[in-house]
Structures are given as structure tokens and as C-alpha cells.
């Protein structure tokens, strides 16, 4: 099966932050990939390059991405002057845009909040609106840049459940940038680790659905990742 996303020999140099020294990455159709790395490892740089948001960078390499691509940022990035539903369907036209927007809001469990102003929502709710705004565009690729980084631990767990449910229902390819090892293992089919602007590891998670096997596999992958990220010394 041909990949949805294909990055080859990607090099990016910034004057300010982050570099990429030749990154190759492929993401299959409907595959959920988590991109782990320490801060400054270049994970956001890679995501911004794939999202075509890095106009200020110089570099080389090839990037192939699908036409329908959505980004969820760390901040919900809702337009404060638009009500929730208008934020979700921003830029969509067509007679059924509002219907689709309502459906997307219902999917993120925010049905009934269509005419709220963004400031009336909690941080988690705002991030769910941002998710709805991405989903309503039916993306083939969903790019998420530490989308839960600013949320509290409990809200984050709820968002994990929601994101997994949504990605299973809509089957977009997902690239989730995170520095949270647990989050990466919990959500992704595959975890890639970026270190010093290069991919340092590419691990298939293969988490069993439940039971002790799941807990053991979780711990195994976690240990592997922590060693790779230089947190634990290898045994």
C-alpha cells in the first residue's frame, strides 16, 4: 500500500530554533504515528514543514502530503469573534456546511454549544472545537502539535479517549507531536523518535487490547523509548 505521507531527505535550517538533518518518514493510510522527542529536537519543525507553515526556513528535501490536511495546534486557535459553530465551519461553503458543523460538534460531545463564544468554553472544550474544525474537513492527514499540552491531566485523559474514538471512526492518517511518552504509546500505532534533527527510532507499538499482556508491552515500549530519549541509562 502506498503511503499517504512521504518525507524524503528533509533538511531545515532556522536562524532561531530547530533544525532537521535529513529526515525520512512515511505514514500509511489511516496510520496513527506519534512523533516523540525532547524539546528542541525538531519535532515541531518537522510538523510545520509537513503542514507547509515554515516559510521562514531554508532547506531541501521532498514532502508529499494529501490534499486534505488539517492541523490541530497546541492552543485551540479559535477566532474569538466567531461563535463556536462558525469557528468549526470557517471557510467551508455549501448548503450543508452548518449541518456538517453541528454533526462534528456533536461528535466531540459539544452539541448544544453551537452559539457560544469561545471565551465561554473551558480549555478542553476549546480544544474539542478545534478537533471538530479539523474533522469537519474530512482530512486524509491530521497533524497535531502537542494538542493536549496545555490541558490538565484529567482533561487530557478524556481527550485521549475522544481522539482515539474519532481517529478510529474517520480513519485519517495522524501525526501526533508530543513529548509525553505515555500519550504516544497509548494512542499511536507507531512511535518515531526524533533526536538532533534525525529519526532515532521507529517502533511498532502493537499494544494488546487488554490484560497483563497489554501492561507488559506498555512497560517494554516505554522503557525502550525512555532509553532512546536519554532519560534512562540502558541496562
Amino acid at each position, binding site marked *: 500500500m502506498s503511503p499517504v505521507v512521504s518525507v524524503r531527505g528533509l533538511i531545515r535550517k532556522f536562524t532561531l530554533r530547530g533544525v532537521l538533518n535529513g529526515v525520512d518518514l512515511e505514514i500509511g493510510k489511516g496510520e496513527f504515528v506519534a512523533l516523540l522527542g525532547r524539546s528542541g529536537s525538531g519535532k515541531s519543525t518537522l510538523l510545520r514543514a509537513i*503542514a*507547509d*507553515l515554515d516559510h521562514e526556513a531554508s532547506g531541501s528535501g521532498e514532502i508529499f502530503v494529501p490534499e486534505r*490536511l*488539517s*492541523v490541530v*495546534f497546541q*492552543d485551540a*486557535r479559535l*477566532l*474569538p*469573534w*466567531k461563535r463556536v459553530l462558525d469557528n468549526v465551519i*470557517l*471557510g467551508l461553503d455549501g448548503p450543508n456546511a452548518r449541518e456538517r458543523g453541528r454533526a462534528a460538534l456533536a461528535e466531540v460531545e459539544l452539541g448544544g454549544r453551537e452559539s457560544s*463564544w*469561545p*471565551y465561554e468554553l473551558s480549555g478542553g472544550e476549546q480544544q474539542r472545537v478545534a478537533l471538530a*474544525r479539523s474533522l469537519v*474537513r474530512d482530512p486524509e492527514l491530521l497533524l497535531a502539535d502537542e494538542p493536549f499540552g496545555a490541558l490538565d491531566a484529567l482533561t487530557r485523559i478524556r481527550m485521549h479517549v475522544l481522539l482515539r474514538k474519532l481517529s478510529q471512526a474517520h480513519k485519517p492518517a495522524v501525526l501526533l507531536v508530543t513529548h509525553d511518552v505515555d500519550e504516544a504509546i497509548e494512542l499511536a500505532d507507531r512511535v518515531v523518535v526524533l533526536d538532533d534533527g534525525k529519526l532515532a527510532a521507529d517502533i511498532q507499538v502493537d499494544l494488546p487490547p487488554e490484560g497483563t499482556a497489554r501492561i507488559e508491552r506498555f512497560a517494554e515500549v516505554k522503557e525502550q523509548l525512555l532509553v532512546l530519549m536519554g532519560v534512562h541509562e540502558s541496562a
Partner: protein
Amino acid sequence: MNARTATSLAIAAELPRDALGVPYIAAPVTRRAQARGERRLSLGEPVPFGWLLGPFLLVLYWSVGSASGLIDPRVLPAPWVAVTTAIDLIEKGRLQADLAVSTLRAAQGLAWGVAVGLLVALVSGLSLLGGYLFDGLVQVKRAIPTLALIPLLILWFGIGETMKVTVIALGVFIPIYIHTHNALRGIDLKYVELAETIGLSRWGFVRHVVLPGALPGFMLGLRFGVMGAWLALVVVEQLNATSGIGYMINLARTYAQSDVIVVGLVVYALLGLSSDAAVRALEARALRWRRTLGR
């Protein structure tokens, strides 16, 4: 005495002791005695028509001063004299006629100033070339007093209505342009990124992001502009005018009718205040999505 000084003054013998008998100092307690529903650093609930307090005190001072003879009627006639004169002017129909002419002039100038100011601010704010073309010119215009331009405008447009409306429009144009342009250029880059990732068209970007984002700035400019329109009226209606509130004041000056001058000034003040209140009401409605200190 608050909790902090209380603990520091307590001597060791009186201190509470823990399970092992070691004295410890209790953490200072801050009492929360503030009224509920009020944020400590916010300005509190606004009182309706609270802004009338200052003007009311001024009129009070004026009345007391005139009644007690502290203010010489030759310097400033008493408020009730001004009221009588106003009634007289209304009965003769002069005030209404002059007011109508003045309002029409101000409205025309305002409309042109707002339309051109907004358009130029958009062109100048949303394209580099537009900025290079217009921004410098506007700064040059700002540095030249409108009064100094009037002789030239008279040469170009004559002494009729066109010149008068042009002077008012110029006075409105500047604040509309400055504040709208400033707000446009100040739109957060993160919204530009968002617009790019969801594939908004140029026009969609202007309509959904730029215009509403610049609205607070435009509204501020509008407040200055509306006031400016009335102010410019004073100047243009003293130039070869045969009607308008400014003309009425000018004529009264010739005949030393200080009461008529006061009526004219009060009319100006009322016009300015009521139109500013209207713009502020419009602003509050248009910017409902904001939560600010002043509400």
C-alpha cells in the same frame, strides 16, 4: 492588626506545638472579606449613565456660580438665560434650520471620511505596496494642520459645500485610517497560520479574520472620527457660511450675544456626546465577543 504581624509578635512560649512538642509558626491567613461577584482588580459593575456625572457637576458649578454672582453675566450668561435664548431660537425656527444644515454637513463629511479611510487602511494594511504608497502620505497629511490646508482647498473647491464637506472628511479620514491600519497590521500571526492551514481564500481571510480582527481598532477610530466631524464643522462654518450652528455662533460673536454663543456651544456638546454614546453602543454590540477590563 493582621495575621502576619500577629504571628511575628507571638513569643515562642505561646506558639502551638506539634506532636513532638516542637513549637511551630502557623502559616499566615489572609481573610477574604471582599464582596462576592466582584473581581478584585476589575472596575466593578458599571452604573447606567454614570458618564453624566462629570457634565452634571460642571452645570451645577455654573448654576451656583451664576446665582451667587461669582460668574459675571457679561463673561458667561447664566444657564437659565441660555435656556430661555434656546427656547426663543427654537420658536423662531432658527436653531432647527441651522442644526439641520450642520448635521447634513457633518454626516456627509463623516460618510466620505469613513469610506475613504477604511478603504485606504485596507489597501495600505493588507499589501506592502499599498503601505508604501499611502502610509507615508497619511503621515504627511497628519503633520499638516487642516486649518493650514483650508486656503488651498478654497482655491480648489471654491467656498461652497464641496470645500466644507472635504475639510470635515479629511478630519474624519485620519483617525479612521490610523486606528484601522494599526489594528490590521496587529492581527496575530497565529490566525494567519490557521487561515493558511484550513485553506481560506484571500477574500475569506479578509472577511473572516482581518475585518473582524481589526474591528476594535476601527471602532476606536470611528469614535475619534465622529467627534472630529463636529469639531471640523466649527471651523468650516465660520468661512463664508450663511447657515449652520457655526455660522450662528459667528454671527452672535459679531453682535456680542454671549447667550447665543453658549447655546451654540451646548448644542455642539450635546451633538458630540450623543453621537459618541451612539458609537459606543454600536461598539459594545459589535464587540460582544470580547472580555475586557472595562466591559
